[in-house]
């Protein structure tokens, strides 16, 4: 099968052609041909788009078994009901021993296969081919012009192995009732305070209500009073899903999106530069703060690729 031209795929995505998405993701996941990815991403850079892509970039994270997939299923159908298109990038853990992984088992998000307004793509975390955080960030970047919402779903609580939350406009942490860990992590400051906390399985009644209250108090204790804590249930009759969609929307409305994205791109560039060349390269630039200053001097619309170029040129 002839490989599609990466720049062409990027152009199609820029014009909102969602059918280019799966092939574009194949290109991005191919870590052996970085030039193809760069050519693709150049087409969807803020400069080419004439500004920030309109998509809402949402991070959804939580421990295994918290009900993320059921929640996403309900959320996807809520968004489709509102006429919004959505792409979900689900990141699954992989086996340390074999490098292989079982994907989609947890992330079963039901949707109509004939509806091209939904894309579900699962990726394995880790693996010897490496570069997951970068690949996920690049995937989100590529899809952002073609979808109304791009969701990055990861497993974990607190410090993510993937840093993908940093890429997102809004991060929601999903927990099931009576998960004491999250409470402790929040209080101890191990876990970063998310933009939104979602307690699933609200159908369990009292225990869910109590969890919601405890989490609210924990947030207050660490001085984060503005963080909404929502209770949802994905089993019929579902509840709280509309409110969650509204809350996500509302968070996006009240945050300074472009400032957050510029910051995210600069952060990603620094992280990826360090991951690729090591701390030593950072020292060649005069240290982390000097590198940050260098990035701050760049154009706000500069893509991560451009920023990486600037860092490399500064060595």
């Amino acid at each position, binding site marked *: *099968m002839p490989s599609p031209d990466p720049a062409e795929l990027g152009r199609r995505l820029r014009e909102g052609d969602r059918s280019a*998405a*799966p*092939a574009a*993701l*194949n290109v991005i*996941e*191919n*870590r*052996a*041909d970085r030039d193809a990815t760069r050519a693709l991403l150049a087409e969807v850079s803020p400069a080419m788009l004439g500004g920030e892509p309109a998509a809402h970039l949402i991070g959804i994270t939580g421990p295994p078994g918290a009900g993320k997939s059921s929640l996403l299923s309900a959320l996807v159908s809520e968004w489709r009901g509102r006429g919004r298109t959505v792409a979900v990038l689900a990141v699954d853990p*992989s*086996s340390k*021993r*074999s*490098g*292989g*992984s*079982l*994907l*989609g*088992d*947890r992330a*079963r998000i*039901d949707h109509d*296969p*004939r509806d091209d307004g939904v*894309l*579900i*793509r*699962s*990726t*394995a975390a880790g*693996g*010897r*081919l490496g570069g997951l955080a970068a690949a996920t960030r690049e995937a989100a970047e590529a899809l952002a012009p073609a979808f109304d919402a791009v969701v990055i779903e990861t497993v974990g609580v607190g410090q993510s192995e993937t840093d993908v939350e940093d890429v997102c406009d809004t991060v929601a942490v999903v927990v099931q009732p009576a998960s004491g860990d999250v409470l402790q992590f929040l209080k101890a400051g191990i876990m970063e305070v998310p933009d939104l906390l979602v307690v699933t399985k609200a159908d369990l009644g009292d225990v869910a209500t109590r969890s919601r209250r405890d989490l609210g108090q924990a947030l207050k204790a660490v001085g984060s009073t503005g963080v909404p804590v929502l209770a949802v249930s994905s*089993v*019929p009759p579902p509840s709280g899903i509309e409110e969650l969609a509204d809350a996500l929307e509302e968070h996006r409305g009240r945050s300074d999106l472009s400032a957050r994205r510029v910051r995210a791109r600069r952060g990603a560039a620094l992280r990826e530069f360090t991951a690729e060349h090591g701390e030593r390269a950072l020292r060649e630039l005069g240290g982390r703060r000097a590198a940050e200053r260098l990035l701050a001097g760049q154009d706000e619309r500069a893509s991560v690729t451009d920023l990486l170029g600037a860092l490399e040129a500064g060595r």
Partner: protein
Amino acid sequence: MRTYAGHSTAKESNELYRTNLAKGQTGLSVAFDLPTQTGYDPDDELSRGEVGKVGVSIAHKGDMHTLLDGIPLDEMNTSMTINATAAWLLALYMTVAEENGVDRHSLQGTTQNDIIKEFLSRGTYAFPPEPSMRLIADMIAYTVDEVPRWNPINICSYHLQEAGATPVQEIAYSLSAAQAVLDRVRPRVSEETFPRVFGRMSFFVNAGIRFVEEHAKLRAMGRLWEELGRQRYGVDDERMLRFRYGVQVNSLGLTESQPENNIIRIVLEALAVTMGREARARALQLPAWNEALGLPRPWDQQWSLRIQQILAYETDLLEYPDIFEGSKVMDGLVDELVHGAREEMQVVAEQGGAVAAVPYMKTQLVESNRERMRRIEAGEQKVVGQNVYTEAEPSPLQEGEDGGILRVDAAIEQSAIDAVQEWRAGRDEAAAGAALDALREAAADPDHNIMEPTLAAARAGVTTGEWAAALRDVFGEYRAPTGVGDAAAAASDDALRALRDRVDEVSEALGRRIKILVGKPGLDGHSNGAEQIAVRARDAGMDVVYEGIRLTPARIARTAVDEGVHVVGLSILSGSHAELIPTVLAELREAGADVPVVVGGIIPPADEVALLDAGVARVYTPKDFEVTRIMGDIVSLVAERNGVVAVS
């Protein structure tokens, strides 16, 4: 004595039943097709290729009338292999009896109705676990007085063994399932009625080839059952405490290679459940020798019936009291199983009971099955004709134009679609609609017994798909856990290590890890094969997308494209491969996915050729038991299709 039968249309099945009754069979055992079992009408997209395949299609009371035409229901003992939609099929059966003037109090029979094993093994569930359990509890509470000679539930340990369960797991999980049911029925009936409910519970057990241990297993189950009745439920009436069970002997151990040997396996397995009087089966069903090849013909079923007749009438088996009484060896074996099962039941109880423990039990079964397959692959467990003594003379039993199996006429599906549409057009629409509204209302109220509104819907001419859809509206859709995600990594052996190296090499050359989609199209829920392939592919280092059972061809194609997989592996055991696989290929082409498709399942040689001609890259059947070798083959296929040369 009976054989599990039913296929294609109600009319043809009716003729088959009448013939079997004339041959000396003493009851009916009805096999339903997968759409009927999962609550879809023949014209539903998901029913495609499955109508009339593994049993008879019953879409409404008219079909049930045809199925039972001329059969005296007040004299008949009818066993129905039906679970998720059991309440509905019982209602149809009762409606036919009612409209023929037969008193419901005289009806005798069994509905399988064990949903937990559907989540664990067989896959024909329709609703989420708790609402499913509620339907079961409603049915039991209703039948205990209204249809008192009916066995409303038959807890199946059978399918657990088919899914790989060890004897201890088989005992522990089935008794835990029974306990989950009883706990839910108890608040629905009076204290005086409850012992009768306990006494009505029956079991459907598997008998494997290790027939001495299997006999001990049944004695152990009897002992634990009585213990459960006395200690947990305070039942003390001896008659109610008896462990009542029927048996279907093991299908899992039947082989595709040298299939004539299966008849010997079946005889030995039948001995396990008949030789000791204390643990003798009350009903015995034997599979056909050629089940691993395709659908058995009437002659094959007759042969299985004859085994039972010879055991019962020619041997001296039934002339003695219990022949193991006082046996130190047997008692010791039973003690060990009882002890192991008690411990495992405790684990299930700690997880919150059988319903909450479904994911745990599923994972345990996937692991046990993997161990079983590994032992066969490694030659540690000998299977004659499969991994030892494989040289054989050609079997004369498989000669003849039909290739030794039955084929279902493909035109049946279309005529069933036409018939159900005609039925809907011909009934009182307002009455059907009102019955469905009442059903939804009752479903939403957990204190309302579902049987009365279900009977009203049956009388009003509602269809199977409509009944189930109304309940899905209230209860929601559900997908069972696959058990593969939590299956532990395999112990490495040389073959697997070599395979991993090849997967790594090819992945490096591709630029990303080999990604495979494993899927089960259609309604067939027998997922053991697909699960083992998925887990082994993961252990071999591939990225595996496994979305479980009941996928439409459109869904499979869409997932293949969106996930960017290198290869698609499909598993079908229901015999619907001839319709479904070409549809998947067409959908993939339409979606622009140029990926190779491999197929595994019970696929006769002629169909294999047809599938390869249609564009399938590889076909694997039960004789391909070496999973690691299959994986290696798939890696080569991916390398070849992508122009990547794998070293080695």
